């Protein structure tokens, strides 16, 4: 058995943390992009589009993220699509993130008074012009705090990627534990690193929320 010094443990965990951050970023960017598209679809007054978005949200909010990951990884390979653990993790986290962001943003857009849409319409603005000049600038201000807050869920969600074999923080923690049999030390460190990633984001989200409330 190989000996692991504290330094080795920390070094390995730090290295793995990079992958956790990278996966979180990829999922967040992917999720934001998909969610933007879905939000635009929901805002059109087209019932078919709206139904698609509703089903999408129900589907990915209503099933455990772990199952989505399993399906992306094992399911797709069984169907003959080779997908890496990295690809499956990004794909499932993107689906998961976007389903929640669409709902968060829907709430933010719905808090804007209906009169903003009507005034725009009466001034002759098109749907897209209204979205771009009136609705989005206001909705973004309201949505930033809860969106940053939700990014914490994305980071914690990446831990599940360890189950399909993606080597990130949790996976490396498990591997180190198997080698050293020091679960308390290892998992305390792992938890601490997650906390250090998440806590600043929570704080920032709270700060944004306060700033927004004051400026109203």
């Amino acid at each position, binding site marked *: 058995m190989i000996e692991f010094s504290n330094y080795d443990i920390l070094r390995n965990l730090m290295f793995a943390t990079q992958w956790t951050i990278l996966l979180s970023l990829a999922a967040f960017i992917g999720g934001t992009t998909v969610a933007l598209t879905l939000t635009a679809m929901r805002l059109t007054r087209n019932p078919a589009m709206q139904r698609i978005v509703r089903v999408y949200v129900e589907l990915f909010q209503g099933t455990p993220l772990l199952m989505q990951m399993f399906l992306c990884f094992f399911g797709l390979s069984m169907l003959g699509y080779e997908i890496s653990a990295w690809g499956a993790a990004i794909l499932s986290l993107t689906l998961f993130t976007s389903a929640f962001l669409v709902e968060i943003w829907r709430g933010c857009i719905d808090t804007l008074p209906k009169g903003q849409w009507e*005034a725009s319409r*009466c001034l*002759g603005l098109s749907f897209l012009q209204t979205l771009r000049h009136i609705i989005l600038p206001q909705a973004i*201000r309201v949505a930033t705090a809860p969106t940053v807050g939700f990014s914490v869920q994305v980071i914690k969600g990446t831990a599940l990627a360890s189950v399909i074999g993606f080597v990130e923080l949790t996976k490396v923690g498990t591997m180190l534990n198997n080698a050293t049999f020091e679960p308390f030390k290892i998992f305390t460190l792992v938890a601490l690193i997650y906390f250090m990633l998440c806590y600043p984001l929570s704080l920032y989200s709270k700060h944004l929320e306060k700033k927004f409330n004051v400026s109203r």
Partner: protein
Amino acid sequence: MSLVNLHQVHKYYGDNHVLKGIDLDIKAGEVVSIIGKSGSGKSTLLRCINGLEQYQEGGITVDGKEVTTEDIQVRRLALSVGMIFQNFNLFPHMTVGENVMLAPTIVLKKSKAEAETTARAMLEKVGLADKFDSFPEKLSGGQQQRVAIARALAMSPKVLLCDEITSALDPELVGEVLKVLEQLAKEGITLVLVTHEMNFARDVGSRVVFMHQGKVWEQGDSKTLLSNPQTDELKQFIGAVL
């Protein structure tokens, strides 16, 4: 020639028959006050005229063109019909100047400089030239409503629809908004306003339309109608508000 014409307009919200065959003809330069009890369909009538609401039967034309709720039609309509709302509906993330300049720049495709000249002139007209760079939330209700008027005027509408635009204001702020309206009336702008301000309707308005239960119950020259109502319903209504 009539500027706004409604012919046998019927409007339903589900089973609720809200407009029951409205006939109305408004000529350029008229100042028409629509009065009536809450729920009689006054707002719905205005919203049908500018395409915000769909009507089920009859026909509405503005400046000879038929009104529908099709997006493309509403946008063309917006060039001739301006609307002022009870709660202003200014864009809170834009300055007063930007509020007024927005539609002329992106809808009428005017240059920034041209739009700004118009915006400043319109704000001058409503007495708010010095508020160009302020944000709406820094203004009083009366000032916000005057900005909304300037914003509508910047599109040089042929007719201005006003839905109880002084009802959300503190009493001491009502006068400044009415004064602007009176000025517009003098300049010959066509106004259609839903209002509870009977003095204004009588002194400034040219015609009063009394709505009751989704119908035009009685209408006529403002002074004659208000001093000599024919129907019991209008007599009662006038008695109640005065």
